[in-house]
């Protein structure tokens, strides 16, 4: 386990170097946004460059950034002047909420649907669900988001079009009122993301379940005359849950940033939106901060996937 951890740290460090190098190949001026459409004097520019360390050699910049990271300091955003750690922490809850709800929905709906398909392979229901999931898989999330927002929020005014909260809701309002408000804002982005990602879970579950149903132990249980649901859920599904659970771990980075487009379209104040804006503004410290966080989440997710897979699959248990 310690080896795994060390290897993970190494991977994250390499990813950080990679992101740093790629970002600095890009032209564009992070100080341009500070100009506010007015000329920055040479003097002011020099002062700003010194403040953000942009006047030093790249190697030194990376070293001081990495040194800061070791102390838990991710630097200061060039565009807003705020600490990157604070920006990330401000936005993490929104990403986790959206990602978490989507996770629950995709797995909560995808697993039973996949099982249903597998128990009646080739039936009309199986083919319909298979076709639908394949079609959903082909939908661009940003397009679906725009269409849903245009229909439900703008045309019919049933739900809020953007954001995570009603800004005028009194911060001192009862807990339930505030939760209901967030929930209303959550419906459309969560629906969009669920539609475009549920297909993966359904297909994984269907395939794993088909394989499990064909196993001798399950066939034997059937032959013993055990009732259908018991065989399906107690015998077959237990063997078929491994790969699907492993998918959970791979989903972890998605919680953080997989929703770039949806956050963008629905103005959801999460990390994906922050990342896209920071890259466009060449806000180096913020880009590095998000990359580090995402890389860590991905590596953690991979480890989690292996562990979960092993834990869920009885055959892999020691």
């Amino acid at each position, binding site marked *: 386990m310690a080896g795994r951890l060390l*290897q993970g740290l*190494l*991977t*994250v460090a*390499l*990813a950080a170097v*990679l*992101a740093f190098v*790629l*970002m600095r*190949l*890009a*032209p*564009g001026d992070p100080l341009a946004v500070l100009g506010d459409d007015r000329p920055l004097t040479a003097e002011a520019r020099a002062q700003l460059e010194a403040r953000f360390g942009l006047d030093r050699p790249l190697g030194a910049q990376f070293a001081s950034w990495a040194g800061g990271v070791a102390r838990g300091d991710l630097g200061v955003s060039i565009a807003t002047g705020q600490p990157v750690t604070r920006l990330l922490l401000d936005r993490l809850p929104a990403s986790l909420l959206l990602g978490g709800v989507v996770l629950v929905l995709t797995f909560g709906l995808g697993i039973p649907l996949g099982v249903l398909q597998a128990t009646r392979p080739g039936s009309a229901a199986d083919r319909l669900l298979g*076709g639908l999931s*394949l*079609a959903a*898989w*082909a*939908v*661009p*999330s*940003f*397009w*679906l988001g*725009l*269409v849903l927002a*245009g229909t439900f929020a*703008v*045309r019919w005014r049933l739900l809020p079009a953007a954001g995570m909260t009603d800004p005028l809701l009194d911060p001192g309002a009862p807990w339930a009122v505030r939760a209901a408000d967030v929930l209303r804002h959550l419906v459309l982005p969560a629906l969009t993301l669920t539609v475009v990602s549920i297909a993966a879970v359904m297909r994984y579950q269907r395939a794993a379940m088909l*394989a499990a149903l064909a196993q001798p132990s399950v066939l034997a249980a059937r032959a013993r005359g055990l009732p259908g649901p018991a065989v399906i859920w107690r015998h077959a599904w237990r063997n078929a849950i491994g790969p699907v659970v492993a998918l959970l771990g791979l989903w972890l*980075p998605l919680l953080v*940033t*997989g929703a*770039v*487009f949806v956050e*963008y379209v629905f103005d959801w104040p999460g990390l994906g939106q922050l*990342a*896209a804006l920071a*890259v*466009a503004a*060449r806000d180096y410290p913020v*880009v590095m901060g*998000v*990359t580090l966080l*995402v*890389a860590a989440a*991905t*590596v953690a997710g991979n480890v989690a996937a292996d562990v979960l897979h092993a834990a869920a699959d009885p055959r892999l248990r020691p």
Partner: protein
Amino acid sequence: MTGSGPYSRAWRTPGARAGLALLLLLALAAIAGPFVLPDPAAQPDVLAGANLPPSAVHPLGTDQLSRDVLARLVSGARISLAVALLAVALAMTIGTLVGLVAGYAGGWTDALLMRLVDAALAIPRLFLLLLLLAAWERIPLWALVVMIGATGWLATSRVVRAEVRRLATEPFVLGAAALGAGPGRIAFRHLLPNALGPVLVSATLGVGNVILLEAGLSFLGLGVQPPLPSWGGMIFDARETMHAAPWTMLAPGAAIVVTVLAVNLVGEALRRATEPGR
């Protein structure tokens, strides 16, 4: 194709046939389009001819610069499909080569390559592309293809590596080595052809992904550059007109869904047909 090989098995499923038929239709439209449709860049009348609903003259209406939506859609199909096919071909080539080298050479080479792959995989592909594409003042089409290809081989290389490592212990490979075949010969004559099955499947499914990805990048303004039409760029532009002229939004979205669906239907059939379990 006749016989009972995996490819003819795949072809026999209705999904694959529908998918192939759709793709063929699309290719035909992309090729014939320019000869029958108006110039996709022409702006006949920006004041009175903008945002016109579908009619006999403009089967899918016009956009906010009075350009013909169908002509732009077809012209965008050429670009979207070309980018996707080339990028995936590139990705598969790199992925296969890296996987082959890592899997067969083993040891240090393998460790180094796979650590690098791990590191790159730790950054989501979209994010990696955002960083890479930002490096261009203005992205030429070939660079877009290279970048999408260069970020798409990571998973393939792992699959090929695993396949190669499995095959390397098979009797026919060991036998070839015993008969004095060099490493290059073994890699390309014995390992590569047998590892290609999974590559082909992931390539087909990859095309669908890349079409979505390219649309997304163009939507963010980082993909195909205007005035070249692309589906993602059309959706981006249509945000301003989707309520006054819904066809500008629906047409490119539907085009993406249908194309990706068609590609995935074929890929899906191929995957099932080549699955060892069947």
